[in-house]
């Protein structure tokens, strides 16, 4: 039985087509995986179904009638609820106020019934985070907690069709499992779900069928009831190319053991950590920082970039002690950051690629007072070629690029400065397979040319594939050191999950860990 059918949905923004031909069928009580590379139009498509974006053309049929969803209210009335990729919570309102926002239960005389609101909120939030107090303000929550509130809010409205746009991005595996359990529950109650994710294992474990978008068009569907869950088929549908190993061959551990130490971090006290962390990085080495999310990996990179000040500690580069009070000092020393949130921290969205690419040079003495635009443009074109930004037009406004290409701009803007140390904060988050590969190719090339790379990635596989060494962080401390070339993924996961107290045995593994050396 099909609940919803979308036919030929179209949408363009200022002449740029976000979606050319979106088609999808939702079956009652099934989970539909919606797949596609960055910028293939998944979010745009979902927003049209939920009324947030008005289609330029196409039809939506729901329960056998043609729908004209003018706004989200309309969609809600029909029972279509969406959890947005970029969360739609109001930071200054409490959890319970957020969870009933727009559907406040009314009491007598049109007054809101706060008691009923709180009860609803409590009941639905309990499925995910029973420990969370519902009268906390949303701004005080972690990203994962916010995501749970968002999902609980959607489910509280007892949707007929639930659209989840990359709900798992900020979640870790155990939390994902919790979500899946709830999704199965909903399925049993005949709710249809559209589930968007870039992680194939999630798709394979929860979806009944998948629909794949490419370049704003529906390119196909696979029904797992009748067809195999063929990963390479899915990937090739997404990318339009034959699937190879996602990130190319493993390159970790190839570093010349005799390379000199370039960067030394000693006694870095992050946030409120009582003890500092210390490590050394060799020239051309790719060092990963893993572990559970939010264990200080991002703070470490931010502190090295000069944006945030650690409570204590020293950094030296090539044996020379550095003062890193401000990103300017870091940039001048050749320590550059590819931040986690590219829109907020990495790009000038409404400026063009050229402007974005040359901008960091303003902080150095590389450009004089008067700019030589011809030269700058040549340089930018060279960068575009190196990191393969598509389209290769330096005049393209960045916000019209797809996510992956935007990320290439963020990395590419540092290339003309020939950085000594490259800090990467989850650079592949929300970047599709093809772009991810190209991104890491660039990183590898830089490493080969002698740039030291410090990489934080939420995805284990990325760390395993790229890094020569991986430090596992827990509560702002290094608790383990892993050499991916020698250990399998299993070791990695278990290290991540181990508590700080269990860090001891890592040192006993024969190699004195940097963490131990720091103490």
């Amino acid at each position, binding site marked *: 039985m099909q609940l919803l059918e979308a036919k030929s949905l179209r949408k363009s923004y200022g002449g740029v087509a976000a979606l050319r031909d979106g088609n999808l069928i939702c079956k009652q009580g099934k989970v539909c995986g919606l797949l596609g590379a960055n910028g293939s139009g998944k979010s745009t498509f979902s927003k049209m179904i939920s009324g947030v974006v008005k289609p330029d053309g196409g039809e939506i049929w729901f329960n056998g009638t043609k729908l004209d969803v003018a706004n989200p209210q309309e969609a809600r009335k029909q029972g279509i609820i969406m959890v947005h990729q970029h969360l739609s919570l*109001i930071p200054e309102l409490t959890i319970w106020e957020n969870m009933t926002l727009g559907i406040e239960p009314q009491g007598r005389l049109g007054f809101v019934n706060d008691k009923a609101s709180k009860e609803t909120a409590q009941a639905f939030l309990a499925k995910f985070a029973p420990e969370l107090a519902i009268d906390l303000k949303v701004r005080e929550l972690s990203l994962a907690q916010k995501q749970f509130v968002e999902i609980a809010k959607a489910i509280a409205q007892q949707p007929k069709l639930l659209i989840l746009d990359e709900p798992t991005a900020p979640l870790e595996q155990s939390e994902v499992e919790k979500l899946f359990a709830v999704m199965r529950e909903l399925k049993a109650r005949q709710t249809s779900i559209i589930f968007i994710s870039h992680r194939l294992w999630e798709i394979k474990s929860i979806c009944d069928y998948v629909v794949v978008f490419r370049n704003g068009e529906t390119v196909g569907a696979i029904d797992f009831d009748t067809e195999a869950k063929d990963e390479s088929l899915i990937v090739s549908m997404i990318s339009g190319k034959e699937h190879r190993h996602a990130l190319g061959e493993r390159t970790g551990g190839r570093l010349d053991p005799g390379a000199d130490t370039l960067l030394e971090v000693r006694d870095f006290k992050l946030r409120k950590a009582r003890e500092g962390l210390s490590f050394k990085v060799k020239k051309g080495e790719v060092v990963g920082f893993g572990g559970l999310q939010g264990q200080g990996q991002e703070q470490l990179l931010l502190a090295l970039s000069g944006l945030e000040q650690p409570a204590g500690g020293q950094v030296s580069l090539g044996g020379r002690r550095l003062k890193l009070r401000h990103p300017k000092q870091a940039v001048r020393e050749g320590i550059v950051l590819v931040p986690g949130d590219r829109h907020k921290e990495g790009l000038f969205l409404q400026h063009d690629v050229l402007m974005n690419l040359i901008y960091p040079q303003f902080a150095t003495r590389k450009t004089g007072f008067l700019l030589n635009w011809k030269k700058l443009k040549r340089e930018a074109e060279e960068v575009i070629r190196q990191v393969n930004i598509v389209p290769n037009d330096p005049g393209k406004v960045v916000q019209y690029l797809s996510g992956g290409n935007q990320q290439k701009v963020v990395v590419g803007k540092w290339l003309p400065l020939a950085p000594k140390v490259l800090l990467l904060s989850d650079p592949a988050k929300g970047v599709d397979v093809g772009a991810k590969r190209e991104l890491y190719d660039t990183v590898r090339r830089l490493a080969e040319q002698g740039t030291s790379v410090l990489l934080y990635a939420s995805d284990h596989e990325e760390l395993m594939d790229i890094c020569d060494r991986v430090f596992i962080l827990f509560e702002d401390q290094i608790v383990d050191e892993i050499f991916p070339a020698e250990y399998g993924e299993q070791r990695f996961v278990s290290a991540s999950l181990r508590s700080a107290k269990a860090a001891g045995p890592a040192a006993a593994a024969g190699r004195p860990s940097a963490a131990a050396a720091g103490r």
Partner: protein
Amino acid sequence: MNGHNRWHKLQHHSLFPIAILFLIVVGVNAVLQPGFFTYDVIHSNLASFTPLVLASMAQAVVILVGGIDLSLGMAITLSTVIMAATMDDSPSGILIGIGLALIATFAVGALNGLTVGFLKLPAIISTFAVSSICYGAALLIMPQPGGYIPYVFYETYQATIASFLPVSLLFILAGLAIWAFIRRRKIYRHLYAVGGSEQAAYANGIPTRKVKLYAFLISSIFIVLAALVIVSQTATGDANIGRAYTLNSIAAVVIGGISLQGGKGNLIGAVLGALILGLISNIIFFANLSSFYQDLIKGLIIIFALTLSILPSLRKKALA
């Protein structure tokens, strides 16, 4: 432990810094002005501060929803002019005057709501344009100050109810009661939602444009109250009488800890902010400064107050 906890909570209450500031200003006043705490002085100070308090509440509602209202002062003006031009001593005359003022003020609110909410014009410019229209209308209605306000108005405004409650305070309480009423309705949360993140509010099915319109309409209620208080203490209509409230109300709102970005703060803060501004004027008065230094010192104190009211957010993060 419990007491400590409560202290902690209090300290992190959004009104904490502004309340401290208020106490400081009251303290300085008490030192400078003998008899500051006598009933007469409190009464007369409240009478002076009430118009700005109400105007600031009006401004606060609009700022909460992420807008700003530069037409506020002239909307007050228009309202006073209409009252003064139409009222006479009969109860029906009074009602007609207030009724017409209400209609005009709501029309101004609706115009602002439509232009800012539905047409998405930048509020800081479009409300300025509306301000010019209001001023023009006020000048047309009353090219020179005058008109008639029944004597009962200013008699009542100076009066005391039950021998302890000044009528001016009653107006502030009325404003707060209206806000308390709104607080318990959907629109209250929607104001914060739209101010906090318009996109998110829209995605939650909140009719964001209507909410902005409602914000301006709610604001109109406070504007009419402010106009009523002003005619009560001036007994006249004057096309220049409200001008100063526009910018003063914005200053009061910000000192009151309400973010100009919207969605953050508390209307009580605006009330305190307005009282603080009034008390600062009194400090200048009773400090008996040489006359040319008055403006300078007042400006500096306001900057100090602003900085102080912003400080708590400074503690949070170095860079926003």
